[in-house]
């Protein structure tokens, strides 16, 4: 039953792709067809995942089709179905959204190609998380990369887009190369490509090879996940892609890397030493803080969101890392608590990041700009997008009672539990990570206050923003769904934890549902850890009651309260856009405080109409140095190119030289291999 659903959904993706390609003339129709197919298929995906999760079963699909020597194994276990769930939810929403969004391109570019690659992309992601065989995994993994690459360079006339695409595909391919080596090393021990055999030999691999594989995996998957300093491609590629694609890339594609981490570290490489977990933890913390610091300085809203994805991946990895540490100290209950934190945040991030990218897409759709300095006052012009963005912003900054807060809370709880770890060093590291997470949370809030406040509030700064109007309805339906999901996951965490618990029972063999949920005196289900309880539901209820009381009291105090509207007091002049606070100005204090990291460069050049007296114009350039490109990537690539340039002497074009090569080779062989 379930496997049939699964196969059908895959087939539907394929059919959608082919349909999109076949409908030559009617682009609009092709557009609808492909995305509707995708939507249906993702619904089936949701159903599949739900079935597998709820009767927590594992389903194997093995085909011996096509290639002789190699089997095609797929496995649907709770872990993979959790990811399938996330992917399918997001892809459903994105598909519905795309139906509206793609109108931007109809008859301007080849929408058929978009639909084609889009469907393949979704299919590839589903297959990545369900593959049970190294060979199949590599194929679908690279297919995912390849298709998303074509989506990134969809607007290839723009040089920036081309650069983004190049950087993306190159880095992704380096990652896959490392992954391949890791797989092969495992293969050398397992003797077969199947993941099952990897699981079987997990304990027999010698430590040194395990460590090699560990680092290969960090880099291989880390590039896709966008951890610092391997994040370079992410803030380039995600903005370059069409918004409906960035929804998926940021929402779920980078999560497939997290899936890889979990598969390897909790199944193929167990038991793992504590310091692995510590490394993951530190990587997570670094990515979190640096990611948000760079997001803070961004003016391009999609780049900002991309950097914030880096930050969130960091937070997820903190959860995973804690879980690994606890596991290696064999404290399974805490390990699964941390795992809940990580996976919960994973799902949350998928939801609100998708929502935010959708709103960014709406903004681009109606204003054709992504630079928030050119926006403003949209809240009056796009009256539905604004609240949706606000909800997204609130939940990404972990404001209760929305979902972001829950996972943040769990992260804090698991970090607090670091005191159970025997080693003092690790204890201290965990607590410092706690501080980092706290700082990150505050910075996220700032960052999204900036993003929302500058682009939606006050007066429009440019014509684009003034002429902005609301986008087609179909784009709201999907995003409304996401917003609702944000609220739901914020208010009823126990439900989500029930799902994640299935995953835990599979990969950690630990069912802590009883331990982490209980009932309060109003018999409402609440979440609890060994430190405390949390019931966002009742907190919200009380909040609403108090709000009611406040309003009532105020009404009683002055029944006929009225507001008078006047223009803002700006020291006597009529308020105009130029007087508004800009995004750059808003984050200026942080630029000063963290100037060691940013190395800000600013130049002011003034042109005078009458020298030194009447200023005609003042140009102010302020930018931050991209230290990773400057000090890490450029040197490496330059080095490689320099070496290659030296190598050109081999082909000097002189035939005597060429003959001499052969002669010398011959002599060497005769002397030494005789």
């Amino acid at each position, binding site marked *: 039953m379930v496997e049939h659903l699964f196969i059908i959904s895959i087939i539907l993706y394929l059919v959608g792709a082919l349909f999109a390609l076949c409908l030559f003339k009617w682009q609009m129709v092709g557009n609808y067809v492909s995305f509707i197919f995708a939507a249906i298929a993702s619904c089936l995906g949701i159903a599949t995942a739900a079935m597998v999760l709820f009767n927590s079963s594992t389903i194997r699909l093995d085909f011996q089709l096509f290639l002789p020597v190699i089997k095609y194994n797929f496995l649907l276990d709770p872990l993979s179905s959790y990811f399938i769930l996330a992917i399918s939810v997001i892809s459903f929403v994105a598909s519905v959204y795309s139906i509206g969004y793609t109108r931007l391109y109809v008859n301007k570019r080849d929408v058929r190609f978009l639909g084609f690659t889009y469907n393949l992309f979704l299919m590839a992601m589903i297959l990545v998380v369900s593959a049970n065989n190294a060979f199949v995994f590599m194929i679908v993994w690279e297919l995912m990369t390849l298709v998303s690459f074509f989506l990134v360079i969809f607007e290839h006339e723009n040089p920036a887009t081309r650069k983004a695409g190049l950087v993306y595909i190159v880095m992704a391919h380096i990652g896959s190369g490392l992954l391949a080596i890791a797989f092969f090393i495992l293969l050398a021990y397992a003797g077969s490509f199947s993941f099952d055999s990897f699981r079987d030999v997990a304990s027999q691999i010698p430590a040194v090879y395990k460590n090699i594989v560990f680092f290969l995996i960090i880099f291989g998957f880390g590039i896709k996940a966008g951890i610092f300093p391997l994040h370079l491609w992410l803030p380039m590629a995600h903005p370059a892609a069409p918004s409906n694609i960035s929804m998926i890339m940021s929402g779920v594609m980078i999560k497939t890397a997290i899936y890889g981490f979990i598969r390897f570290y909790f199944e193929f490489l167990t038991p793992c030493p504590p310091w692995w977990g510590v490394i993951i933890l530190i990587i997570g913390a670094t990515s979190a803080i640096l990611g948000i610091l760079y997001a803070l300085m961004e003016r391009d809203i999609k780049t900002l969101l991309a950097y914030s994805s880096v930050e969130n991946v960091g937070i997820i990895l903190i959860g995973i890392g804690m879980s690994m540490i606890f596991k290696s100290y064999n404290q399974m209950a805490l390990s699964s608590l941390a795992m809940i934190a990580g996976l919960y945040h994973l799902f949350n991030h998928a939801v609100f990041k998708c929502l935010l990218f959708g709103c960014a897409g709406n903004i681009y759709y109606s204003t054709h700009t992504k630079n928030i300095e050119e926006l403003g*006052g949209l809240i009056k012009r796009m009256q539905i997008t*604004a609240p949706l963005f606000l909800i997204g912003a609130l939940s990404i*900054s*972990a*404001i*209760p009672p929305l979902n972001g807060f829950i996972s943040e*809370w769990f992260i*804090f*709880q698991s970090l*607090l539990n670091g005191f159970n770890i025997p080693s003092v060093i690790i204890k*201290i590291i965990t*607590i*410092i990570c*706690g*501080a980092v997470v*706290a*700082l990150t949370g*505050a*910075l996220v*809030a*700032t960052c999204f*206050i900036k993003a929302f*406040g*500058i682009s939606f*509030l*006050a007066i429009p700064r440019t014509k684009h923003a003034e002429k902005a109007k609301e986008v087609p309805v179909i784009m709201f339906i999907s995003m409304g769904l996401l917003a609702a999901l944000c609220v739901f996951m914020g208010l009823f965490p126990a439900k989500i934890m029930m799902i994640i618990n299935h995953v835990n029972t599979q990969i950690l063999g630990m069912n802590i549902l009883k331990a982490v949920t209980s009932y309060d*005196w109003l018999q409402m289900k*609440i979440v609890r850890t060994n*430190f*405390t*309880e*949390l*019931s966002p539901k*009742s*907190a919200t209820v*009380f*909040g609403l009651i*108090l*709000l009611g009381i*406040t309003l009532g009291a*105020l009404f009683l105090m*002055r029944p006929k*309260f009225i*507001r*008078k*509207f*006047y*223009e*803002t*007091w*700006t020291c006597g002049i009529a308020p105009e*856009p130029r*007087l*508004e606070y800009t995004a750059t*100005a*808003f*984050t200026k*204090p*942080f630029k000063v*405080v963290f100037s060691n990291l940013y190395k800000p460069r600013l130049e002011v050049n003034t042109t005078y109409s009458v020298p030194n007296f009447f200023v005609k114009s003042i140009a102010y350039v302020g930018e931050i140095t991209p230290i990773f490109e400057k000090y890490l990537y450029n040197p490496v690539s330059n080095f490689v190119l320099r070496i290659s340039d030296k190598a050109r002497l081999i082909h000097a074009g002189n035939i005597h030289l060429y003959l001499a090569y052969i002669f010398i080779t011959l002599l060497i062989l005769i002397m030494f291999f005789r």
Partner: protein
Amino acid sequence: MSLTSNIILPILQLIVIVGLSPLVKGFINKIEARFQCRRGPSLFQPYYNLIKLLRKDAVVSETASWIFRATPYVTFVSILVIALLVPVLSSCVPLNFTGDVILIIYLFALGRFFLALSSLDTASAFGGMGGSREMMISSMAEPAMMLSVFTVSLTVGTTNLGNITSAFLNSSTLLLNPSLFLAFAALCIVIIAETGRIPIDNPFTHLELTMVHEGMVLEFSGRYLALIEWASGMKLLILLTILVNTFLPWGVASGLTFTGLIISFALYVVKIGFFAFLIAILESSFAKLRLFRIPNLLGTAFILSILAIISLYVVG
């Protein structure tokens, strides 16, 4: 605990926090006036202000959106919810189950979020300036706050303020712990930063370029201003309450006896008064720091809290 207590205690707490918070402000103003050799306004001046403002209509900027109008209510209510989460008179907190100190911290963040938004909402430059500075200060304060709170909750083994208080009440030896003193110091600095008192921010200034909190709320008037003022007053009181009831919990009623409540109330007033007095001294003996000196101060707080944690882990 019985249903009655679950009805009565919240109401009591609300009354105490909501009722006393203007008085604390008035008290601080009075003391400072005394230090400046003025008679100063009456203790109850803040009450008069609030009532006056509540009676008035509001003037709203025409560029502002519904965010601006929603902000006062959000801020006020979020503070009220917090008021239900902290132990004031009795160590058994009514809404213990709904959340812990982390929730409290993020509820503060909720109010701050909306305030900062509304500061940007009225296309005036001062608002934005105030908002960005406020965000900077609070972000810097966040880690120190978190860590000092962690120190306390790790010594006790819970993050619920109520349980913390009762734990300290039960065994006073727990309190004699050097790391707690470090945490206490850190928390004091953080509270000053959070409530925007001198030397971080001057609550009395309306000189444009020095405004932080005042800059944010510059455009509010009438009822909205009243709610925000009141909320900030309550924030001060709540933070002080957390401070005193965590680090010097003596006298806090553990049960729900009438006498117990009376005693703890009396002691509570004394402690709060003491700390208010300290703030007054501080404010009248220091000048406001330069904006970019503030991170150093908060950094000190952070270092203190880190030391607290490390000493806790290493020494035990």
